[in-house]
């Protein structure tokens, strides 16, 4: 811990997270074009992809976002990395507010310290570029090294670092398998020597046998370079194995955040419990798998109050009218649920046994 403070001069405070999101919201205007709106009198439609999301990630740690498809995980990632400006809220990188005027100038200087690994290994590499040029692009874009040879040497190093051969640089992406492409993606992300990596479902497009290899590589790299990860995945077993902290999202909001062990062994929010109940029983102990019940709501017109109330077995009147504020429990476990706050939800049987399964 104090090691980190010594090395990072920006972290003047005792405890400065690498990345902090505060009240982050991102809305999309999905209305019909202006002319159609006027003629058909259709209303403006605002899709609230992300609403009031806050979290912090400490150096060298992995924070995971989980939740059903469309709950806004990728949007959070894109806002943080700067692909979308936030509608509201702030992103801090090592204490610098990236949205302030000062931060924006700073942001362009700091951008190389934040990189992203994408889900689709077939779409994330330009099919018309040689692997060598793909990996060298961040170096060239940020002007990190001068000289052709130096860049080439660095690219060779990176290729070997991720378990490929230096000679692979001359090939085109289509000559590689999904797993190898993901390694190329990782090499590109590492080219600018980032401190923070956003991994949006980096393994969900891969074969199960390859997933473990990629996850292990990412873990090794994290240890070696002290990387901080924002990790996004559908696969709760994977999340359990890689995360220090987990955030559960539902319809754009974080409903539960806490240490991975804590969340997996003592899930509080009814939605988290439902998600964990839906994991296939990896130990084959015969425990019944309960599928996730009900349909996810519509982010354009989410249910009132707690957006989860139509699916929640503990829903009460208050849940239908009032948006629950997060309450903090011991160990930084935060839950946004009236039922938990009112202490009227019984403790769950641990639905997911830590250590079960062998995915990672």
């Amino acid at each position, binding site marked *: 811990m104090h090691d980190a403070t010594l090395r990072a001069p920006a972290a003047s405070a005792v405890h400065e997270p690498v990345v902090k999101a505060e009240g982050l919201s991102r809305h999309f205007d999905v209305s019909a*074009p202006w002319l159609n709106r006027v003629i058909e009198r259709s209303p403006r439609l605002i899709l609230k992809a992300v609403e009031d999301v806050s979290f912090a990630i400490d150096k060298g740690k992995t924070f995971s976002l989980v939740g059903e498809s469309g709950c806004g995980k990728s949007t959070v990632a*894109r806002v943080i*990395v*700067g*692909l979308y400006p936030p509608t509201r809220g702030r992103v801090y990188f090592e204490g610098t507010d990236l949205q302030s005027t000062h931060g924006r100038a700073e942001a*362009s200087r700091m*951008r*190389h310290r*934040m*990189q*992203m690994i*994408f*889900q*689709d290994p077939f*779409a*994330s*590499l*330009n*099919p*018309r570029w040689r692997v060598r040029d793909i990996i060298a*692009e*961040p170096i060239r*874009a*940020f002007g990190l090294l001068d000289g052709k040879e130096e860049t080439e040497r660095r690219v060779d190093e990176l290729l070997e670092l991720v378990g490929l051969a230096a000679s692979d640089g001359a090939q*085109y992406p289509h000559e590689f398998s999904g797993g190898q492409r993901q390694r190329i993606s990782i090499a*590109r992300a590492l080219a*600018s020597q980032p401190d923070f990596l956003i991994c949006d479902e980096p393994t969900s497009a891969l074969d199960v046998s390859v997933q473990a290899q990629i996850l292990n590589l990412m873990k090794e790299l994290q240890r070696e370079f002290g990387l901080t990860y924002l990790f996004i995945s559908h696969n709760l077993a994977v999340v359990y194995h890689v995360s220090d902290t987990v955030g559960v999202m539902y319809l754009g909001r974080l409903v539960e955040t806490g240490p991975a062990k804590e969340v997996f062994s003592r899930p509080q929010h009814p939605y988290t419990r439902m998600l964990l109940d839906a994991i296939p029983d990896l130990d084959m102990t015969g425990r019944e798998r309960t599928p996730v019940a009900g349909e996810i709501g519509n982010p354009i017109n989410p249910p009132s109050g707690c957006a989860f109330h139509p699916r929640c077995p503990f829903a009460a009147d208050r849940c239908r009218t009032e948006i629950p504020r997060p309450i903090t429990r011991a160990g930084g476990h935060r839950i946004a649920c009236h039922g938990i706050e009112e202490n009227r939800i019984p403790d769950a049987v641990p639905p997911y046994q830590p250590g079960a399964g062998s995915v990672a």
Partner: protein
Amino acid sequence: MTAIAQDLWGGIRRFLDGDIVYSFRQSKVAVIAALVTFIMISSAICAPLLSTHNPFDPTTYNLIDAEYPPFWMEDGDPRFILGTDNQGRDMLSAILYGSRVSMAVGFFSILFAMAVGIPIGLISGYVGGTLDAVLMRIADVQLSFPAILIALLIDGLARGILPGELREGLAIYVMIFAIGISHWVLFARTVRGSCMVEKNKEYVQAARIMGRHPFFIMLRHILPNIMGPVLVIATINFALAVLTEATLSFLGVGVPPTEPSLGTLIRIGNDFLFSGLWWITIFPGAVLVILTLSVNLLGDWLRDALNPKLR
């Protein structure tokens, strides 16, 4: 700049190997069309070597030789394989030089259309929003006028503005401009559509995260990935441009008779059709049909080969 050229070239080359070449060998029509196109283009380029005289140069032909029929007919002369026209010009030479003019106008007008259409399509597709809406409405308006009308309009305008002596010399450039301007919309639309697909792909997002300039992303990342459809449009529209040129020249508003294109030859021949001198108009006409047909077939094949759903 050289990097862009290299990239483009690399893109075209890779696009040509693998599946595409295989599908080419499988298609007899494509092979024949390619062969015919190749022969026609190369003989047009080599026109000075293949022809007996330069039909643009009045000192090389003689009125005495006028109106010879093709050599296999009675009264034919083996010096003039396809006969001669009313001024004594060898038809084969005239056709070779004429297709040269036709193809040059077709080629450069498509090049011009690409130079206008591709950047507009890229910017429209990449930037989106109001700019895209405005550009595409302009394109819609232009598309609602037939190409030939736009070409006639510009040609007429040029005739009104340019003084007489300049007019002849500039006629061919006016044609290239007129035909090119009436074809840019197709390129812009195709490029815009493909660009909108590409820009949402993750490799473009990766480049944006690196803070790459939008122009860099459009030219180096997106453009090489959308060259396939552009090539299809270019091929098919080359044939269309040659036809438009022929139509304009046939109507007498195209290239001047001193530098005849296929269309001009057909028009000149048309006047003699009923006096029995059919070869003056039929041969250039046949060449025009064969050229545009084979280029079109090639374009159709290319489109199918690039569209995996149809394969």
